[in-house]
């Protein structure tokens, strides 16, 4: 991968390793970054789908939920080992993504958006209605914590687990982007007509990246379930799908770093808005609107061009 990417990756890895020490083991700050990591995993997948391949999904909370409920239900009701439940979640998510993706990704723009919206909503209803299995609206509790050699993974240990996933998936994603497959995805985004003419089977690649992004979301869901040990459908609603979308768009859909930045901003922001809960939805709407109108490439690009302008000013001043 490119050198810039490598350095950024190393910096993030280093920060992740040091973070629990930097915050002196403070559980609140640690769980905050656990959630950030979990959201980041989903947004990385979404970035591959939206930023690189140029597709859209307004229902990704569904796959997050499939992962969470797979892990939750299988470990609590059927005593399946967490690793097994994790893999089953991935398989389920991938399968459903494939089945839904094939007809949906053929659709154009708006139709695709609404189809994914509808799909997400249907799954939300399913999570609510399958109460014997999922616990319905009151949720599913008693999800076991993960253990390694008998010791439960909590606090800082869970933080390291989640961020190990983040780093590994980041490496995987960057590798894909800078490969033949990444080029094919970007070609589909750039001009589906030309991509097909050059031998890229656009429809197959679109479904592939959709499935991949669903798998990322499922992994995040499983990690989430074992962390909070209680899940309910409200975490997998339309609002969360939109929030995920916002993370990608606000941070900058074009790059995977933008997606991570967006996840950071929109995971940490609600914490600052604590106490202003009434204004939360309003704030999200306002932020999204402002970004779309004035920084449509996202904050990351916005900052970059701002920096560029500042540098330009600086060198002009030196003349």
């Amino acid at each position, binding site marked *: 991968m490119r050198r810039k990417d490598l350095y950024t990756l190393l910096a993030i890895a280093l920060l992740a390793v040091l973070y629990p020490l930097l915050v002196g083991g403070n559980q609140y700050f640690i769980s905050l970054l656990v959630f950030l990591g979990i959201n980041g995993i989903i947004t990385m997948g979404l970035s591959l789908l939206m930023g690189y391949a140029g597709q859209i999904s307004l229902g990704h909370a569904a796959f997050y939920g499939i992962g969470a409920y797979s892990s939750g239900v299988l470990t609590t009701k059927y005593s399946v080992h967490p690793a097994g439940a994790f893999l089953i979640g991935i398989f389920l998510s991938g399968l459903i993504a494939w089945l839904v993706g094939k007809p949906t990704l053929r659709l154009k723009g708006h139709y695709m958006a609404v189809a994914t919206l509808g799909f997400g909503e249907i799954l939300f209803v399913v999570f609510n209605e399958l109460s014997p299995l999922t616990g319905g609206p009151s949720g599913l509790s008693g999800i076991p914590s993960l253990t390694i050699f008998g010791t439960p993974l909590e606090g800082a240990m869970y933080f390291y687990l989640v961020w190990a996933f983040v780093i590994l998936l980041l490496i995987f994603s960057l590798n894909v982007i800078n490969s*033949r497959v990444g*080029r094919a995805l970007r070609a589909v*985004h750039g*001009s589906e007509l*030309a991509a097909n*003419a050059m031998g890229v089977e656009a429809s197959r690649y679109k479904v592939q990246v959709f499935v991949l992004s669903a798998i990322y979301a499922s992994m995040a869901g499983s990690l989430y379930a074992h962390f909070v040990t209680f899940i309910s459908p409200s975490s997998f609603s339309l609002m969360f799908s939109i929030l995920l979308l916002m993370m990608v768009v606000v941070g900058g859909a074009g790059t995977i770093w933008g997606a991570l930045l967006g996840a950071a901003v929109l995971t940490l922001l609600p914490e600052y808005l604590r106490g202003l809960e009434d204004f939360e939805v309003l704030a999200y709407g306002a932020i999204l609107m402002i970004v779309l109108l004035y920084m449509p490439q996202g904050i990351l690009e916005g900052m970059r061009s701002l920096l560029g302008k500042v540098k330009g000013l600086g060198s002009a001043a030196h003349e």
Partner: protein
Amino acid sequence: MSEQILRVQGLWKSFGGLRALESLDFTVSEQQIKSFIGPNGAGKTTLFNVLTGIYPPTEGTFEFAGKSLNGLKPYAIARRGISRTFQNLALFGNMTALENVMLGRHIRTTTGLFSAGLRLPGMRREERAIREKAMEELRFMGLENRATMEATSLPMGEQRLLEIARALATQPKLLLLDEPAAGLNMRETAKLSETIRMIRERGITVMLVEHDMSLVMEISDEVLVLNHGKKIAEGGPKDVQRNPEVIAAYLGEEAGDA
């Protein structure tokens, strides 16, 4: 130079009531440079679109290297060895010139999602080979200095050459060029003419849609004239040029219809 590489028989293409191509028959020989000319709206680009699978033909067949291409999707036709450029340019604006050409290597390579994500050694080897081959094609088209520039930031003439480089990277047996000289000045057109000859020397058959008559006359082995979707003349450039029907089609359509 005598093997038939493309055979089109009884090709019809209608869009609702509009007949874009009517009862078209022709063949193209291996390593031939065959040009397709005709007034605007004659159906030339539609022909290219049908041959590359973008539109299915309403009727008729077309065979490439002896095998039928009917019903194949564009990506499958590309895999069989037909590549093209576009009249209105269809570069990947979100990638650099080099990356555009590297994409051309897609069908000649195999790295999949997992080898890519895990960066296996085979993938790295293949990636290096892709990059080298892409640079070769850029050099062939004289664009090696543009490798790292955003594809759509290049001047129009160079963008057209870049599309050719990308198409060449697919290692086609048949190359379809759709108005490659549009927007080129005389010097650039002369260079293009030379380049097309060199492409033929590489063993590639070339089909050309063009409006620039001097280019057509200079490099074509054969010329086929279309008017209103029908073939009205086919033969050597000089013969076609003298054909009264062809002249009438270009000059006096209004007069002829009066």
